[in-house]
Protein backbone atom coordinates (compact mmCIF):
# COMPACT_ATOMS: atom_id res chain seq x y z
CA UNK A 1 0.00 0.00 0.00
CA UNK A 2 1.23 3.50 -0.79
CA UNK A 3 2.16 6.07 1.84
CA UNK A 4 1.35 9.76 2.06
CA UNK A 5 3.94 12.34 3.01
CA UNK A 6 3.24 15.95 3.91
CA UNK A 7 4.93 18.81 5.68
CA UNK A 8 3.48 20.21 8.88
CA UNK A 9 3.39 23.96 9.57
CA UNK A 10 6.36 23.56 11.94
CA UNK A 11 8.42 22.10 9.09
CA UNK A 12 8.37 18.48 10.23
CA UNK A 13 7.61 15.73 7.75
CA UNK A 14 4.74 13.36 8.49
CA UNK A 15 4.52 9.93 6.92
CA UNK A 16 0.95 8.65 6.82
CA UNK A 17 0.46 4.90 6.88
CA UNK A 18 -3.03 3.95 5.63
CA UNK A 19 -4.51 1.17 7.72
CA UNK A 20 -6.38 -1.95 6.68
CA UNK A 21 -8.04 -2.89 9.96
CA UNK A 22 -7.54 -6.47 11.00
CA UNK A 23 -10.99 -6.49 12.63
CA UNK A 24 -14.31 -5.33 11.17
CA UNK A 25 -12.80 -3.61 8.10
CA UNK A 26 -15.54 -2.10 5.94
CA UNK A 27 -13.45 -1.33 2.85
CA UNK A 28 -12.07 -3.92 0.47
CA UNK A 29 -9.52 -2.48 -1.93
CA UNK A 30 -6.18 -0.80 -1.25
CA UNK A 31 -7.37 2.17 -3.30
CA UNK A 32 -10.36 2.70 -1.01
CA UNK A 33 -8.22 2.44 2.10
CA UNK A 34 -5.64 4.82 0.69
CA UNK A 35 -8.35 7.33 -0.21
CA UNK A 36 -9.86 7.10 3.28
CA UNK A 37 -6.47 8.02 4.75
CA UNK A 38 -6.06 10.87 2.26
CA UNK A 39 -9.49 12.25 3.19
CA UNK A 40 -8.40 12.47 6.83
CA UNK A 41 -5.26 14.55 6.28
CA UNK A 42 -5.15 17.60 8.56
CA UNK A 43 -6.37 20.83 7.01
CA UNK A 44 -2.95 22.45 7.42
CA UNK A 45 -1.04 19.65 5.67
CA UNK A 46 1.36 21.22 3.17
CA UNK A 47 2.27 19.60 -0.15
CA UNK A 48 0.69 16.18 0.51
CA UNK A 49 1.73 13.53 -1.98
CA UNK A 50 1.60 9.82 -2.55
CA UNK A 51 4.87 7.94 -2.38
CA UNK A 52 5.86 4.32 -2.71
CA UNK A 53 6.66 2.66 0.60
CA UNK A 54 10.17 1.97 -0.68
CA UNK A 55 11.13 5.66 -0.51
CA UNK A 56 10.64 5.79 3.26
CA UNK A 57 14.07 5.34 4.88
CA UNK A 58 14.38 2.25 7.04
CA UNK A 59 17.13 3.76 9.19
CA UNK A 60 15.47 6.16 11.66
CA UNK A 61 18.69 7.54 13.17
CA UNK A 62 18.01 10.90 11.55
CA UNK A 63 14.19 10.63 11.45
CA UNK A 64 13.71 14.18 12.71
CA UNK A 65 15.73 15.50 9.77
CA UNK A 66 13.55 13.97 7.04
CA UNK A 67 12.10 16.28 4.41
CA UNK A 68 9.97 15.86 1.28
CA UNK A 69 11.76 16.29 -2.02
CA UNK A 70 10.07 15.55 -5.37
CA UNK A 71 8.22 12.43 -4.34
CA UNK A 72 11.01 11.18 -2.14
CA UNK A 73 12.12 11.49 1.45
CA UNK A 74 15.50 13.17 1.78
CA UNK A 75 17.68 14.11 4.73
CA UNK A 76 18.19 17.72 5.77
CA UNK A 77 21.94 17.53 6.37
CA UNK A 78 22.27 20.59 8.67
CA UNK A 79 19.60 19.01 10.90
CA UNK A 80 21.36 15.65 10.66
CA UNK A 81 24.59 17.21 11.87
CA UNK A 82 22.84 18.70 14.91
CA UNK A 83 21.22 15.34 15.65
CA UNK A 84 24.60 13.68 15.44
CA UNK A 85 26.16 16.24 17.77
CA UNK A 86 23.36 15.53 20.26
CA UNK A 87 24.09 11.82 19.91
CA UNK A 88 27.77 12.42 20.66
CA UNK A 89 26.86 14.60 23.65
CA UNK A 90 24.71 11.79 25.02
CA UNK A 91 27.50 9.27 24.46
CA UNK A 92 30.13 11.37 26.22
CA UNK A 93 27.99 12.29 29.22
CA UNK A 94 28.63 9.11 31.26
CA UNK A 95 32.29 9.12 30.20
CA UNK A 96 32.78 12.65 31.52
CA UNK A 97 31.03 11.71 34.76
CA UNK A 98 33.38 8.76 35.25
CA UNK A 99 36.41 10.89 34.42
CA UNK A 100 35.34 13.38 37.10
CA UNK A 101 35.43 10.56 39.64
CA UNK A 102 38.77 9.32 38.35
CA UNK A 103 40.17 12.83 38.57
CA UNK A 104 39.14 13.18 42.21
CA UNK A 105 40.77 9.86 43.07
CA UNK A 106 43.96 10.86 41.25
CA UNK A 107 43.89 14.11 43.17
CA UNK A 108 43.57 12.25 46.47
CA UNK A 109 46.63 10.17 45.52
CA UNK A 110 48.51 13.24 44.43
CA UNK A 111 49.00 11.65 41.01
CA UNK A 112 49.74 14.69 38.86
CA UNK A 113 50.48 12.67 35.72
CA UNK A 114 47.14 10.87 35.89
CA UNK A 115 45.34 14.14 36.52
CA UNK A 116 46.95 15.62 33.42
CA UNK A 117 45.98 12.58 31.35
CA UNK A 118 42.37 12.77 32.55
CA UNK A 119 42.19 16.50 31.92
CA UNK A 120 43.41 15.98 28.37
CA UNK A 121 40.88 13.22 27.77
CA UNK A 122 38.05 15.37 29.11
CA UNK A 123 39.06 18.10 26.69
CA UNK A 124 39.04 15.62 23.80
CA UNK A 125 35.51 14.61 24.77
CA UNK A 126 34.42 18.23 24.88
CA UNK A 127 35.85 18.72 21.41
CA UNK A 128 34.13 15.80 19.68
CA UNK A 129 31.17 17.92 18.60
CA UNK A 130 33.57 20.29 16.87
CA UNK A 131 35.15 17.54 14.78
CA UNK A 132 35.52 18.95 11.23
CA UNK A 133 34.40 15.62 9.84
CA UNK A 134 30.88 16.42 11.03
CA UNK A 135 30.63 19.47 8.80
CA UNK A 136 32.40 17.65 5.98
CA UNK A 137 29.93 14.76 5.96
CA UNK A 138 27.58 15.01 2.99
CA UNK A 139 25.36 11.97 3.62
CA UNK A 140 23.81 10.37 6.70
CA UNK A 141 26.07 7.36 6.20
CA UNK A 142 29.18 9.53 6.22
CA UNK A 143 27.91 11.29 9.32
CA UNK A 144 27.31 8.04 11.17
CA UNK A 145 30.92 7.08 10.52
CA UNK A 146 32.07 10.19 12.39
CA UNK A 147 32.47 8.71 15.81
CA UNK A 148 35.94 9.59 17.03
CA UNK A 149 36.40 6.29 18.80
CA UNK A 150 39.72 7.38 20.23
CA UNK A 151 37.99 10.27 21.91
CA UNK A 152 34.81 8.49 23.00
CA UNK A 153 36.49 6.42 25.67
CA UNK A 154 38.09 6.84 29.03
Amino acid sequence: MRKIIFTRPDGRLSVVHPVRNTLDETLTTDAEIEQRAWDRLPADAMNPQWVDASVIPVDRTFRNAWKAELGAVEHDMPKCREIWRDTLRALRMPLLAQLDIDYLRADERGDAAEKARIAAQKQRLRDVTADPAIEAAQTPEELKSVIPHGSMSK
Partner: protein
Amino acid sequence: MRRFIGKVSNPIRTLVQTAATQAEQETGTAVDKFVSPGRQQFHPSAAKCWIEFTIAGVVNASYNITSVDDTGLGDWTVNIATDMSSGNYSAGASADPTGVVAAYNVTIAVISKLAGSFRIIGTRGNDGTILTDPFSGPVNAWAFGDQ
Protein backbone atom coordinates in the same frame (compact mmCIF):
# COMPACT_ATOMS: atom_id res chain seq x y z
CA MET B 1 -39.81 -39.73 12.61
CA ARG B 2 -40.36 -40.07 16.33
CA ARG B 3 -43.10 -38.07 17.98
CA PHE B 4 -43.34 -37.06 21.59
CA ILE B 5 -46.50 -38.22 23.23
CA GLY B 6 -46.91 -37.40 26.84
CA LYS B 7 -48.06 -35.00 29.43
CA VAL B 8 -46.59 -31.58 29.39
CA SER B 9 -46.52 -30.27 32.87
CA ASN B 10 -45.56 -26.71 31.96
CA PRO B 11 -47.09 -24.80 29.09
CA ILE B 12 -44.66 -23.63 26.44
CA ARG B 13 -44.06 -19.91 26.65
CA THR B 14 -42.99 -17.89 23.67
CA LEU B 15 -40.24 -15.47 24.59
CA VAL B 16 -39.89 -12.48 22.25
CA GLN B 17 -36.83 -10.34 22.70
CA THR B 18 -35.41 -7.72 20.39
CA ALA B 19 -31.90 -6.46 19.81
CA ALA B 20 -30.85 -3.30 21.56
CA THR B 21 -30.67 -0.26 19.32
CA GLN B 22 -27.53 1.87 19.14
CA ALA B 23 -29.17 4.39 21.47
CA GLU B 24 -30.06 1.67 23.95
CA GLN B 25 -26.52 0.35 23.82
CA GLU B 26 -25.12 3.83 24.41
CA THR B 27 -27.48 4.41 27.34
CA GLY B 28 -26.54 1.05 28.73
CA THR B 29 -29.48 0.64 31.15
CA ALA B 30 -31.95 -1.68 29.39
CA VAL B 31 -32.14 -5.16 30.90
CA ASP B 32 -34.82 -6.61 28.56
CA LYS B 33 -32.86 -6.40 25.28
CA PHE B 34 -30.08 -8.55 23.97
CA VAL B 35 -26.79 -7.27 22.64
CA SER B 36 -26.14 -8.00 18.98
CA PRO B 37 -22.59 -8.33 17.63
CA GLY B 38 -23.03 -5.41 15.27
CA ARG B 39 -23.94 -2.97 18.05
CA GLN B 40 -21.90 -4.28 20.95
CA GLN B 41 -19.25 -1.62 20.41
CA PHE B 42 -21.69 1.22 21.19
CA HIS B 43 -21.80 0.39 24.90
CA PRO B 44 -19.83 2.91 27.02
CA SER B 45 -17.58 0.15 28.29
CA ALA B 46 -16.44 -0.97 24.83
CA ALA B 47 -13.25 0.22 23.16
CA LYS B 48 -14.15 2.40 20.18
CA CYS B 49 -10.84 1.88 18.45
CA TRP B 50 -7.50 0.23 19.12
CA ILE B 51 -4.24 -0.36 17.33
CA GLU B 52 -0.80 -1.87 17.65
CA PHE B 53 1.88 -0.40 15.41
CA THR B 54 5.66 -0.23 15.14
CA ILE B 55 7.56 2.98 15.78
CA ALA B 56 7.78 3.38 11.99
CA GLY B 57 3.99 3.32 11.77
CA VAL B 58 3.57 -0.18 10.37
CA VAL B 59 0.30 -1.60 11.70
CA ASN B 60 0.20 -5.08 13.22
CA ALA B 61 -3.47 -5.13 14.26
CA SER B 62 -6.25 -2.57 14.53
CA TYR B 63 -9.94 -1.78 14.78
CA ASN B 64 -11.70 1.37 13.51
CA ILE B 65 -8.52 3.17 12.42
CA THR B 66 -7.86 4.92 9.09
CA SER B 67 -4.15 5.68 9.38
CA VAL B 68 -1.16 6.40 11.58
CA ASP B 69 0.96 9.51 11.06
CA ASP B 70 4.65 9.11 11.87
CA THR B 71 5.78 12.67 12.56
CA GLY B 72 9.12 12.07 14.21
CA LEU B 73 10.87 9.99 16.79
CA GLY B 74 8.33 9.39 19.53
CA ASP B 75 5.56 11.37 17.82
CA TRP B 76 2.53 9.72 16.22
CA THR B 77 -1.06 10.66 15.38
CA VAL B 78 -3.70 7.93 15.26
CA ASN B 79 -6.64 8.73 12.97
CA ILE B 80 -10.02 7.17 13.80
CA ALA B 81 -12.37 5.84 11.09
CA THR B 82 -15.76 6.39 12.76
CA ASP B 83 -15.09 9.49 14.82
CA MET B 84 -15.80 10.04 18.46
CA SER B 85 -18.65 12.49 19.08
CA SER B 86 -16.26 15.12 20.47
CA GLY B 87 -12.78 15.53 21.85
CA ASN B 88 -14.02 14.52 25.28
CA TYR B 89 -13.13 10.85 25.56
CA SER B 90 -10.50 8.68 27.16
CA ALA B 91 -7.51 7.58 25.11
CA GLY B 92 -4.41 5.78 26.26
CA ALA B 93 -1.18 4.37 24.89
CA SER B 94 1.73 2.23 25.93
CA ALA B 95 4.87 0.86 24.35
CA ASP B 96 7.49 -1.79 24.70
CA PRO B 97 10.65 0.26 25.28
CA THR B 98 13.03 -2.49 24.19
CA GLY B 99 16.03 -0.93 22.51
CA VAL B 100 15.76 2.51 24.04
CA VAL B 101 18.88 3.76 25.80
CA ALA B 102 18.63 2.09 29.19
CA ALA B 103 19.34 5.20 31.21
CA TYR B 104 16.38 7.02 29.70
CA ASN B 105 13.50 4.56 29.96
CA VAL B 106 10.53 5.78 27.95
CA THR B 107 7.12 7.21 28.75
CA ILE B 108 4.30 7.05 26.22
CA ALA B 109 1.34 9.40 26.64
CA VAL B 110 -1.64 10.79 24.72
CA ILE B 111 -1.15 14.55 24.77
CA SER B 112 -4.02 15.85 22.62
CA LYS B 113 -7.35 14.62 21.25
CA LEU B 114 -9.76 15.60 18.53
CA ALA B 115 -12.98 13.79 17.59
CA GLY B 116 -11.17 12.09 14.71
CA SER B 117 -7.64 11.62 16.00
CA PHE B 118 -5.32 11.64 18.97
CA ARG B 119 -1.61 12.34 19.30
CA ILE B 120 0.87 10.16 21.15
CA ILE B 121 4.24 11.35 22.39
CA GLY B 122 7.14 9.26 23.64
CA THR B 123 9.42 10.96 26.14
CA ARG B 124 12.49 9.97 28.06
CA GLY B 125 11.55 8.84 31.51
CA ASN B 126 14.51 10.54 33.16
CA ASP B 127 14.07 14.13 32.01
CA GLY B 128 10.79 14.32 30.07
CA THR B 129 12.35 15.37 26.79
CA ILE B 130 11.07 14.01 23.49
CA LEU B 131 12.74 10.79 22.44
CA THR B 132 15.75 11.32 20.25
CA ASP B 133 16.84 7.73 20.01
CA PRO B 134 14.87 4.98 18.27
CA PHE B 135 13.46 2.07 20.17
CA SER B 136 11.87 -1.09 18.91
CA GLY B 137 8.27 -0.66 20.08
CA PRO B 138 5.57 -1.65 19.29
CA VAL B 139 3.17 1.06 20.40
CA ASN B 140 -0.37 0.24 21.57
CA ALA B 141 -3.23 2.76 21.62
CA TRP B 142 -6.94 2.71 22.32
CA ALA B 143 -9.92 4.97 23.03
CA PHE B 144 -13.11 4.75 25.06
CA GLY B 145 -16.06 7.13 24.92
CA ASP B 146 -19.04 8.21 22.86
CA GLN B 147 -19.11 8.00 19.09
